[in-house]
């Protein structure tokens, strides 16, 4: 069994955006959106007594994800290795999960009208490649690995060096992207980049009273569309894998 996690060392990170561009080209993320994002300058204090830190964030693949339960179609789900994924065939682009995620890690892709987010480059993992952002990081500040493997580097960084989880009173759901940083850096992070409150005040109520009818209609439409697509595919034969 594996439990995938990432550790970002803010002491080494320079906020150069190599990771976010690599992610963008790997997954065709439209300009203006990101599966991962960087804030290079977060300077606080008064000249010349100032501190700063770069900030890098992405989906945290939480232990207790806030995005799964509110999803009306079951498109968002979690693998046993911890990766939270979106099944784009089931996603109807309603955006509830975008509101639910306290880290704002999800966006609706305007090209596909589906929700998109980081999936630790699961496809690359299957090819024994590191996630695109980790592979390209110009300062080797991002580490990816298995927290259940005591020999992994991330295990050491988390359990021996005390890498930090970005949690607060708004959300404490076990994010699996950990951070290493100086006290000064983490102070800025806590103040500026801590998770927000869920915007779904009472998700269950919203679900029952308002969305259910809408969603079921949408699911119906999706199934119809799927069926058409399926029969078309049957008619044309197997769809080639590369386009």
């Amino acid at each position, binding site marked *: 069994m594996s439990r995938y996690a990432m550790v970002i060392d803010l*002491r080494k990170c*320079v906020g150069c955006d190599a990771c976010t561009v690599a992610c963008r*080209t790997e997954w065709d993320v439209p300009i203006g959106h990101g599966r991962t994002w960087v804030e290079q300058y977060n300077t606080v204090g008064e*000249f010349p007594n100032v501190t700063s830190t770069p900030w890098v964030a992405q989906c945290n693949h939480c232990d207790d994800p806030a995005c799964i339960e509110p999803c009306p179609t079951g498109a968002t789900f979690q693998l046993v290795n911890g990766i939270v994924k979106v099944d784009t065939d089931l996603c109807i682009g309603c955006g509830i999960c975008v509101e639910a995620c306290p880290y704002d890690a999800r966006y609706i892709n305007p090209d596909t009208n589906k929700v998109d987010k980081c999936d630790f480059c699961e496809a690359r993992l299957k090819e024994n490649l590191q996630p695109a952002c980790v592979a390209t990081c110009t300062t080797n500040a991002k580490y990816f690995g298995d927290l259940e493997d005591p020999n992994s580097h991330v295990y050491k960084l988390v359990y021996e060096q005390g890498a930090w989880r970005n949690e607060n009173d708004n959300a404490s759901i076990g994010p699996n992207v950990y951070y290493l940083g100086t006290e000064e850096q983490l102070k800025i992070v806590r103040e500026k980049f801590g998770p927000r409150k869920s915007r779904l005040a009472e998700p269950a109520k919203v679900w029952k009273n308002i969305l259910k009818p809408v969603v079921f209609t949408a699911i119906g439409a999706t199934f119809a569309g799927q069926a058409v697509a399926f029969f078309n595919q049957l008619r044309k034969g197997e769809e080639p894998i590369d386009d």
Partner: protein
Amino acid sequence: MSISRREFLKRTTIATGALTLLSSTKLKGLQKRNYPKGWKGRMRVQEIPSICEMCFWRCGILGNVDKHGKLLKIEGNPAHPLTHGRLCARGNSGHKLAYDPDRLKYPLMRVGKRGEGKFKRVSWGEALDFLTDKLKEIKEKYGPEAVGFFPHGIQARFFEHLMKAYGTPNIVEPAFAQCRGSRDVGYRLTFGNSVGSPEPLDFENTKLMVFIGTHVGENVFTGQNLAFAQALERGAKLIVVDPRFSVAAAKANYWLPIKPGTDIALLLAWMHVLIYENLYDKNYIRKYAIGFNELKRHVKKTTPLWASKITGLPANLITETARLMGKLAPEVGLHPGRHTAWYGNDTQRARAMAILTALLGSYGHPGGIYLSSNIPAPHFPSPEYPKPAARADGAGDIYPFGSRGLGITNGLVDATFSEKPYPIKAWIVYSQNVLQSIPNPWKTKEAINKLDLFVVVDVLPMEQFLYADLVLPEATYLERYDDLYTVRNAKKPFAAIRQPIIDPLYESKPGWWIARETAKRLGLEDYFEWDSIEDYLNFRLSGLGVTLKKIQTKGIVEYDEGKPFFDFSNPIEFKTPSGKIELYSQLLKDYGFDPLPVYAPVEEVPKGYFRLLYGRAPVHSFARTQNNEILHGYMPENQLWINKQIAEKLGLSDGEYVRLENQDGILSDEIRLFITPGIHPESVFMVHGFDQKSPYLELAYRKGASDTYLMSRVEIDPLSGSTGMRVNFVRIIKNGEPVMVSGGVSVISEFKKTRSDARPKKHIIVPRIHQESEASDEGC
């Protein structure tokens, strides 16, 4: 087309075959698994190694190509000895340069007036006939020296070879006078060797890194970023001297927010502490250096207290940092800097840094600056060049230490403008951007207007293209072979190849083809006697015992016999006149310059103004990448950094747009304010390269403000000829009025509502006031 698709595929079949074997785990099974839509990996059939050219560092890349030959994405090449498979934001965006819809697609000839941008499409035959007829005519009438050549990068080497064969001495690159020229002169005068590129800092073994204005992390070279971060991780200390709280400064143990222009005072004070507290490397200095006693006398009075009043830094901070250097010497990596064309005293500042390096004993020592090694890559045999006339740019005479190899761009602009020492009738600009890299673009434009022939060889229609008589579209770095790239500044030197990842788009042609075809028409084909570019590269690689085919799958060949450090057990001969490290330079004395660096104050910032500083961002290179779809998405415009307290006094708010007016009344386009506590109150800062003035650059056109266009004056370094550019002052204009702390209006009541590109006729003298060294209310 020189390389047809078929030919190209044939050529790379072997490469692909071997590559598939090498990376079989990567590519195997791609057809079987069900991969997510939109993932580039599932379409990738080939990874072709090459070297990047999104900036000048030339990191190793792997172009991921699909079965149609389309470039999907670019990754880092793990075989690259400095970058280890990592690649910056720009390198990752390279495919958007090749697929930029605004690219120059066909040869063009001007039909309108210069600057109008009216062209007709011509064939390559017509274009090259026109070019060579003109070149022949100029040679006959004025001699070959009447042609100025402005190259940049390895891609221009073939054409440079042609221009030398043609007979002109006037070959000039901004890499010298607008960038690192003064630094290299200063280090050469001291150690007998210039620093070169990439900067040979042994961060792997360093205990302390010292940056003076160097902004690693924002000025990104992937290999240097990596070494820097790993040094930090190892626990190396960091001192950053910068008026701006840069990314590196945020990681520093000591940030010294120096008053801009006073670096030499700080350096002299550091030397004072090292010498008078006996912290310098006595053995190293005794054995290898001359002039120590003169230096000791010279820095006797340059105490930290003295420097404190000049630099605005606390004296104890100066002492403490000097002691730290002394304690951790010789494993101190004092970064020589990159772009050092700041104040016109730049060679002397570089001298001071070199002398400090010598006092620490870190030159040629592990943990300090390592030495470059030679690579046996022979040049293809060709006839000797004709003996050229004297240079027109002043390199070697007006500016005695100016590089004759790289030349002095501004010197050639001046010569063209004044027609002295002789008229310059043609410019060929090759991969350079003369209106954005050379300060005072008005003068450059006037010089261009004096030419009989102005040729631009480029990939994108930059502003200079509007003035060209002839435009030749070059293939991008992803579509061509270039000359072998040899890296001497690596502990293990290596050579890397650039090879086509995709076919040249439109009618663009690789540089070697353009040069050779032009040579044929000029009767200079003897200089290009190779059968094919592969033949040429094979010859150059023969010295390393490999063939092109053999390294096409890896892209790199390492040369194991580098000698990065001195063998201190044997005598060391430095390539200076004395054979030793010259703390005191008799050569400088003989030429009438200070033999030891002297601090002289730079001009104070006038009341109501700020000193204009500029630098780099990790998502853009020079003025080159602003039209790249991805990079434009990240940073469509630059911002003006201004000190928070000053902004509050002036009533400015973060994110609002203002204009800048410089000391000569030149007005910038609108720029957004970035209010931060992380900048010296006396200065403002912007990233270089914005406000592109070519309307043919759809994304970049007129976004942000151009620092170059605010540089109507420079302080020329008398030693090297390099243009000090941090000598321009700007004030903030909001709603057509200057922003003053009192809310008052400036003495200049009339402001141009729109920017005029004409050179200002009248030089407006701005009243100066003497300011205290403690920065209190500058800029308002």
